[in-house]
């Protein structure tokens, strides 16, 4: 019942948000909080291993899916809270007379959240594909929220590229469906891993390649990444937090979950190589693009591409089984990136522009926005004492320990390059003297509170992980490593 409630609650909130514009923000927040509570209860149930099922096996949860579910639920809460103050503040900034889509925002927010929550909860692979496709459909108008030509262009690119990817991935899903079903296993993640050793390598490898292209487009992997910076530069910061924090991770989640099946098939030679090449290519391109970016929301979008690459490459160099490796990077990136976009959103309210060259002295002008952006940049770049430092360090240590010197060496160099590029760009924004005549703007209280809530895991999980969460991360890493 708990699993079903996680999907029913946002559906109910959508109906209320459609009926009443006035209560929509608060109903959405209450719904997101309830979802987080139920997701936590469900995750606790699988923290030490095993899985739970509901709705005649239509819904299920294991360690890895529970971890992703918690991330979606948490970012959902902070994004809802952040939006309450942020959207009216942004509307005040909009000077070209075009009204943003405030009326549609809250129902779509709930539908978008529900579709993302469905990804880890659904059992059947074909139905999971539909949930992923729906995340694009429901978020299209959230990307186009500001209703300007540029926002609509970004939304169109986003929908077309990710839908094309989804159709390519669909081909793979259906071939895999045949393979698992033919092997006499249920068409679920557990069934895939159980069937993998007996599958014809072509029935496993071809779907994987189709997924790498198809879901890779959704995850923002190079060279299918072009929609990602455009969508993030135009969408409201709260939507960017959801897109970058957890939506692109949905596609990456699919690529991670197929990994133990590939590794478990004796006919597929070195599947890790696919992950290493795809991952390093994304990290390399993103690191160089961060150096020359002109818009600070695009900067964090490129950083998302970089992190998707790190997670894939980490899987390939052997960090999948390390509980503080691939899984922890996947986990820590979600809340750290959402924090970065919240901070970027506050900076946009303060300055009314996203151009790095037009923004100086954010620390002096607005200490809250300035410190948030600086700390977010330090955290996302992978510096201590933040959570991403732990995972990046562990990934590199595992890679060198496993003898993957070339791949790990390259990954290290690219992470360092991205680190320098992010801090250089953000340094230009936060330091220096602001324009003397610029008026001070009061930041929305709910947005500042959301920022504080998002800061807590980013900071605390850098040195302390509560025991149930540590057990869940360990269980998730064991699932990613596979039965061997």
């Amino acid at each position: 019942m708990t699993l079903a409630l996680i999907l029913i609650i946002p559906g109910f909130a959508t109906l209320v948000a459609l009926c009443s514009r006035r209560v929509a923000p608060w109903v959405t927040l209450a719904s997101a909080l309830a979802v987080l509570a139920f997701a936590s209860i469900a995750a606790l149930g699988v923290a030490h291993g095993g899985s739970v099922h509901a709705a005649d096996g239509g819904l299920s949860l294991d360690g890895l899916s529970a971890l992703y579910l918690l991330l979606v639920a948490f970012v959902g809460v902070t994004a809802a809270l952040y939006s309450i103050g942020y959207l009216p503040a942004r509307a005040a900034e909009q000077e070209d007379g075009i009204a943003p889509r405030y009326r549609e925002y809250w129902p779509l927010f709930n539908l978008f959240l529900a579709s993302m929550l469905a990804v880890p909860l659904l059992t059947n692979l074909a139905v999971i594909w539909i949930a992923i496709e729906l995340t694009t459909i429901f978020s299209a108008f959230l990307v186009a929220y500001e209703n300007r030509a540029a926002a609509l262009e970004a939304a169109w690119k986003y929908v077309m590229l990710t839908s094309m990817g989804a159709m390519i991935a669909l081909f793979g899903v259906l071939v895999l469906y045949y393979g698992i079903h033919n092997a006499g296993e249920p068409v679920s993640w557990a069934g895939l891993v159980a069937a993998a050793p007996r599958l014809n390598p072509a029935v496993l490898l071809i779907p994987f390649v189709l997924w790498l292209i198809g879901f890779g487009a959704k995850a923002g992997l190079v060279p299918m990444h072009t929609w990602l910076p455009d969508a993030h530069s135009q969408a409201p910061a709260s939507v960017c937090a959801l897109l970058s924090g957890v939506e692109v991770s949905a596609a990456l989640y699919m690529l991670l979950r197929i990994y133990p099946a590939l590794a478990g098939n004796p006919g597929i030679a070195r599947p890790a190589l696919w992950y290493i090449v795809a991952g390093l290519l994304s990290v390399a391109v993103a690191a160089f693009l961060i150096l020359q970016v002109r818009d600070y929301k695009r900067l964090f979008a490129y950083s998302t591409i970089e992190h998707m690459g790190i997670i894939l490459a980490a899987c390939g160099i052997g960090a999948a089984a390390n509980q503080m490796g691939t899984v922890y990077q996947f986990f820590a990136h979600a809340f750290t990136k959402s924090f970065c976009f919240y901070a970027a959103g506050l900076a946009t309210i303060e300055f009314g522009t996203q151009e790095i060259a037009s923004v100086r002295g954010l620390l002096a002008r607005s200490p809250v926005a300035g410190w948030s952006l600086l700390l977010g940049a330090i955290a996302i770049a992978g510096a201590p004492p933040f959570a991403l430092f732990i995972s990046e360090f562990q990934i590199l240590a595992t890679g060198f320990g496993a003898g993957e010197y070339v791949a790990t060496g390259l990954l290290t160099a690219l992470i360092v390059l991205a680190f320098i590029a992010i801090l250089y760009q953000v340094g230009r924004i936060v330091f220096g003297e602001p324009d003397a005549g610029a008026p001070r703007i009061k930041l929305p209280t709910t947005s500042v509170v959301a920022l504080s809530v998002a800061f807590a895991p980013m900071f605390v999980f850098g040195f302390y992980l509560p025991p149930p969460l540590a057990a869940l991360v360990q269980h998730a890493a064991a699932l990613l490593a596979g039965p061997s």
Partner: protein
Amino acid sequence: MATAHAIDGLFAALFVIFGLGVIGTRQMLGTLYLFVLHSLALTGSAIVLGVALGSPHLFWVAAITFSTKVVAVPLVLRYSAGLEIYGRREVDQVLTIPVSVLIAAALALVAWVAANPLVHALAARPFADINVPTGLMAVFFGAFTVAVRREAVAQLMGILIMENGAFFASISIVNDLTIIAEIAAAVDVPVAALVIGLLIRNIHSVTGITRVGLLAELKERR
């Protein structure tokens, strides 16, 4: 079985021709009609395979394809982007029609070769040798349509052609997709068409055009 194989081959040929038609036609309304015919060929193949393999699930697939893609999608598009579809006649594209058709022919060959390992792996499925390469061709044709058409509606047709391609291949290899997945897929397509149609209408109302290929505000400035 041999007769069924021959009839399925006929539907596969029609499926390829209608897919090529979407790439080659200049008329906006023509692309929509060709998509409807493309979906009818998919429906026909599903019925043939349903009879030959004795699979009631494939009759479901045929019914769902007919009701969503032949009936619902054109209605939804008429509601959401009717002015753009029925008001404009010509579709712009990046390449000329002959060049596009030549490239499509090359893509068909690539699809045929690329599908080979999969067809070998699926030797136990009697119709996979026809449906899998044909389906992959449609996926390539659809992607190519999205890449070369500047018009939003034509790009949407490209996406839908890709989906038809994936299903054309899958009906020969998965003829017992769970009913939940079938119903969910049935809901997904019209919803996607509605949302994308509404997006097209908004692009038209804000920018005055639906030639999305001309929208180029978002570039990394140097």
